[in-house]
């Protein structure tokens, strides 16, 4: 557990950073952005790994296992879906030929 005030500072600054960065995203990218930020909270996977890694009773291990499973799903699914969407955004300018 972090020192409370430091935690508060980190929290405040991260919130500003998230807000300011997103505030400039054009509407055209809102769907991929939603799934992209969905991917980013997939970092919960790391926390679930730590929880499972320190679990002691079988109940804890069971819950931890489910946690890692879900966290991995969040991270992997979020990535694939976002990447697939963003891949499709193309400009007509850089000399692209006939679209498929």
């Amino acid at each position: 557990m972090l020192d409370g005030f430091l935690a508060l500072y980190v929290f405040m600054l991260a919130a500003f950073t998230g807000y300011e960065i997103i505030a400039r995203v054009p509407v055209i990218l809102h769907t991929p952005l939603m799934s992209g930020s969905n991917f980013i909270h997939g970092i919960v996977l790391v926390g679930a790994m730590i929880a499972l890694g320190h679990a002691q009773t079988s109940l804890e291990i069971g819950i931890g296992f489910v946690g890692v499973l879900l966290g991995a799903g969040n991270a992997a699914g979020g990535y694939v879906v976002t990447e697939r969407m963003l891949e499709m955004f193309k400009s007509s300018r850089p000399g692209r030929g006939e679209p498929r």
Partner: protein
Amino acid sequence: MAWLPGAIRACYFLAALLFILGLKRMSSPRSARAGIVWAGVGMALAVAATFALPGLGHRGLILAALSIGTAAAWWSGRRVAMTAMPQMVALYNGMGGGAAAAIGAVELVGFAGAAVTLLDGRSFTADGQAPGTAQLSLAVLGALIGAVSFSGSLVAFAKLQGWLDRRFTFSGQRVVNLLVLALAIVLGAMLVGGRLTPPLIAGFFALALLFGLMMTLPIGGADMPVVISLYNAFTGLAVAFEGFVLGNEAMIIAGTVVGAAGTLLTQLMARAMNRSLGNVLFGNFGATTGAAQAIAGAQKPIEASDAAVMMAYAERVVIVPGYGMAVAQAQHKVWEFARLLIERGVKVKFAIHPVAGRMPGHMNVLLAEAGVPYDLIADMDEINPEFPSTDVALVIGANDVVNPLAKTDPASPIYGMPILDVAAAKNVIVVKRGKGTGFAGIENALFYADNARMLYGDGQAVAGELVAALKTLDA
């Protein structure tokens, strides 16, 4: 987290940095692709570093869960159709919420065990201290939010997937929901107070899950995207809180950034629909709309061949897609048609309303999938001044977003929502299957306008007919 080796903390730091830089790059279509890759590298780094943590047990189990979860999600994510994106995002988001709740559960169960053995002080911070009130509160709060996001997102998924068609409403629902939430909070407070018994923990989670379920069930399927975005912010917050408990800065930062970003996105969505978030969550929007009011005039039909000729000889055509295009999966045919027009020298643009479809940017994703370059796509503010000089506006599967009643009828549920001003075009052709209303369930005055012609049929079929008609013209 001073007990972590420097190299691992450095990896976490790098991961947080890459997440932020990745999000930054997602703010332009040109660099967005690279952005997600950067964020992905950050994630891989963080996971690898975690494996290297000293004292991490159950590595086999971790690897197993990691592999299964990744493989399943990767496979489903690769396979799913573009139109099903909203529900997939809901599903993955729910998983994240569930994982956060699971972390909280492991913590609490662990604390409970420690409490039984008279505070042996075991805690994940591994600094040998008993859990403090702040730590417990954050663990409980993160678990609550995560669990609500989990069950709520699953309901959203089920609704969008069509597995749960009806809305589930009964009188007094709001009061019951509030009671469930209040009870969950009371149990949570008792946990924080130190009464860490297993039944209490189980009850707390059961109530939290139940609340997520009950809160989401009455919301109409079409409102789901806003709800999903809200749950996305929830999961972010839950992750940040559990990150505080674990002392993991990467989780704190990534979670908080997503929490703030998701809140902003949710607001933007609600605002674009001209509704408040409270109205979305509790409003039962559309459920109460009465009979469509009569509008003077008649709908004048047109044949696909005539419509095709009209556009073939036009100078400027603006295509306005809406939810119906997504339903009909017509984007590929529509783009084929647009390309034929462009080859004939017609100036074609696509005009996209911020809330066309069922999630923000929905139409952009579909058109991008079909291969429409994004510089042919104009947003509302850009295109509205151009309608008066447009020869034909082709509305395909859009309804509410082109409804002039939003400007003229203060009694309308969409009154005040900015719309695409297609009525100002010289001619309007509307493609839809019949007399169906849009999301808001109201009549559309546009369809009765003098310059409007109705082209009835399924979006994909009609687009195919238009393509065929153009081709005969050229032959």
